[in-house]
Structure formats: C-alpha cells, structure tokens
C-alpha cells in the first residue's frame, strides 16, 4: 500500500503540498484538481521523482527517500507528454531499455518485449521510430515501456491531456483493462468512471476524498466558486472528507 504521512513540499518558498496524509490501497484511485493545485508534485512523490521536504512516502516497508530504486521498480510512472518519455530510436528498443536494469537475459527480455508490443497493438511498429508514431500510439508506447517491467502500481500524470477523443478513449480502455493498481491524475473527469476513490486537490491539500460522483460534484462546485479574475470575489471552500476515508 502506498502511504503518505505528513507530506509537505515547496518550490522556491511556495508551498505546493501541505501536510498530506493518505493510504492509497484501492485498485483505481483518481486525483483531480485545478492547475497549480499540487497534483503533479503529488504524483511525483509517489515513486520518488520528488522527495518531499517534510513527511514520508512509503510502499510497504520501503520509503522513497531510502529505497527510491526499489520503489521505482514497483511503481511505474507515465507522463502527460509521451514524446519526452521515448528514449530510444525505435519502438521495440524503447520498450526493451526499461528492462536493462532487471538483467533478465536476452530470451526473457525478447519474450516480454514481444508480448507487450502485441498486447498494446504496437507489434507492427516495432522497428519504427517512436517519435513518428501518432499521439495515441506514443502514449501507448509510454504505457507499454512502463508496463513491460511489470510494476505493481501505475501512476499516470494526465496521460490524455495531449490526446484527441479517440486516443483518449483508447488510453482509457487500456488503463481500465490493467491488472495493476492505478493512480490516475487527470483533468478528464470522464476517465474516473468506475474508479474506487477520487481525491480532489486544492491549494496543496486534499480538499475532498470520496466516490467519483461525489468528488466530481465537489470539484465542479469548487471551480464554479473560484474567482476567474484576480480580485473577483468567490465563496470560500473548506476542505472536507467524503466517503472514501
């Protein structure tokens, strides 16, 4: 189980995460929130990409400060811009390089690469340059490159932000079909259908924690209540707990 205990973090004196404590044990957890609410920083703390200024993020007995290497092998991460995640020139090579650290041997590496390319419909593109794939295919490649290492948990930071509706649905179907636990950070509220739990982030805190429908209603109300222009008044919102915790 991923556990956050009193996690706080600042960038250049600006607090982006404020004393967050959570246990993330559900199969599907969604996180929504406005731009600048701390979602991406929170996502990055989950596999040690960001080490919080205060508090602890742990997976079982390991914490990200001391055992980042082990945690990253168990917690995969998918970014919003898949193009930046592609490291190797061709599709198959990009999937394969993630396995290097595991030292699996040639036969097992080849078997895993073939299987994952087949599963995500990329087998016909295996020798194509990754950067020439369509946006949806790039995101599938990013997913395949992470999933080939067989992580227990997948953290996705806005994986559909740059995609059109068709590709968004394709990524949605792919995520829905995964056996792994998924923590999805998104602006796309439709992706949260069927999720077990959704958190709403606001100003570095978890402002709501509950079922998807309630979380979306809370988030919508929160967005409607916030001023659009500096100085424009809007009703204050107090953090509250939903049914999830």
């Amino acid at each position, binding site marked *: 189980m991923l556990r956050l205990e009193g996690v706080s973090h600042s960038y250049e004196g600006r607090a982006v995460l404020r004393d967050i404590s959570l246990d993330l044990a559900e199969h599907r957890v969604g996180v929504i929130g406005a731009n600048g609410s701390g979602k991406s920083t929170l996502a990055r703390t989950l*596999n*040690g*990409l960001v*080490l919080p200024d205060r508090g602890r993020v742990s997976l079982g007995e390991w914490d990200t*400060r*001391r*055992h*980042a*290497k082990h945690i*990253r*092998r168990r917690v*995969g*991460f998918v*970014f919003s*811009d898949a*193009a*930046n*995640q*592609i*490291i*190797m*020139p*061709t599709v*198959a*090579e990009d999937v*394969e*390089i*993630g396995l*290097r*650290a595991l030292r699996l041997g040639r036969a097992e590496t080849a078997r895993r690469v073939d299987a994952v390319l087949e599963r995500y419909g990329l087998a016909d593109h295996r*020798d194509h*340059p990754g*950067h*020439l794939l369509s946006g949806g295919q790039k995101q599938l490649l990013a997913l395949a*490159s*992470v999933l080939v*290492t067989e992580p227990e948990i997948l953290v996705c930071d806005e994986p559909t932000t740059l995609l059109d509706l068709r590709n968004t649905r394709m990524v949605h179907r792919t995520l829905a079909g995964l056996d792994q636990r998924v923590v999805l950070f998104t602006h796309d509220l439709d992706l949260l259908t069927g999720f077990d739990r959704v958190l709403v982030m606001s100003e570095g805190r978890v402002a709501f924690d509950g079922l998807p429908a309630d979380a979306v209603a809370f988030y919508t109300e929160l967005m409607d209540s916030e001023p659009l222009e500096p100085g424009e008044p809007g009703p204050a919102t107090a953090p509250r707990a939903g049914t999830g915790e």
Partner: protein
Amino acid sequence: MSVIGLYVPGTGPLHRIAAGPKLLALLVAGAALLIAAHLWAALGALAASLLLYPLVGLHPRRALGVLRALWPFLLAIGVFQTLFVGAWAEGARLCAQLAALVLLANAVTLTTRVREMLDLFERLARPLRHVGVNPDRVALVLALTIRSIPMVATAWHAAREGYRARGLSGRPHLLVVPVIVQLLRMADATGEALVARGIDEDTRVRTD
C-alpha cells in the same frame, strides 16, 4: 524524417552480419581509402558504395539522400581545392572519399539496430570500468544522442511555426533562443523519464 540513419528493417546480407564485423569492415575500408589517397581508388570506392545499397536490399534513394545532404560540403571542398589550392584532382579525390565513407557508414547504420550498436559499445567500453567509466552510461549517452536528433528538429519546426503564425519572417537567428529553451525543457523531461523508468537510478538513490 532525416535522410541519414536510423535502422531500416530488412533481411539483406548486411542485416544478417553482426554490428562488430560491420564496424570493423567500415574502419578497415576507411583506413585503406585514406592511406591509398588515390583519385581512381576513391572514385572506385564511391561507385562501389553506391552499388552496395541495391545489392544489400536498401533502396537507392537512401544513397541519393545522403549525397543530397552532403553536396554543399562536397561543393565547398571542390571549389576550395580548385580555386585556392589549384588542385582539382585533389578536390575530386577528397570529395569522392568523403562521399564513399559517409555512404558506407550510413549503410551500416541503416542495417544495424541501435540496440546492437549499443551492446557493442558497451562491450568495448567495459575495460574503461577500471578508470571509473560506467559502460551502461556510455551506451545510454549514445542512445540519447541519436534520439535527440529528431527532438532538435521538432523544437526547430515548432519555433518556426510559432514565428510564422505571428506574421514574422526572415531573421532566423531569432529562433535560436526559443529552440534552446524548448530543448532544455525536453532534456529536463527526458531526464525525469529516465529516472522514473529506473534507467539511470544511481544518481537518485539516497541513503541518508
């Protein structure tokens, strides 16, 4: 897409040869060509390099693409040698040597998976472990260098489109700053992806 590099899937004779022998042959051919330093040998090597493409199952347009990319350099060398040195035969030899070598190197690149090339460089760099060099990292740097070519092209096209969309034209030097900024962002994101994928873990593991 770049006319030079990357791997083209195929089953031709060059595809079936391992990266090591191919690179060794390239090295020997290059050394022989430079040591011979003979016009007809250079022209013969150029003709052979051009013939090599269809013989190993590569489309001749790939060879022509290389020559198209090279011609400004060949022209500059030829003009310099003829006008300023007064040695047109020397200029022709240098041009033929350069074109033949680039064609041969490109044929090796087109028929060798980057993965094979990296494995080879990793093996070659292994002795350097004793002086503190990490062979994995050498291979990774090479891979990222190859990967960064289309990234630079993407950043340049994006900056140029933004420039044109604002009704501006000419003064291409104004694109340099936005391209560099974009490349730095891309590099930062790629670095983060490397860490997230556990490919370059040592730098991020903390023991405190």
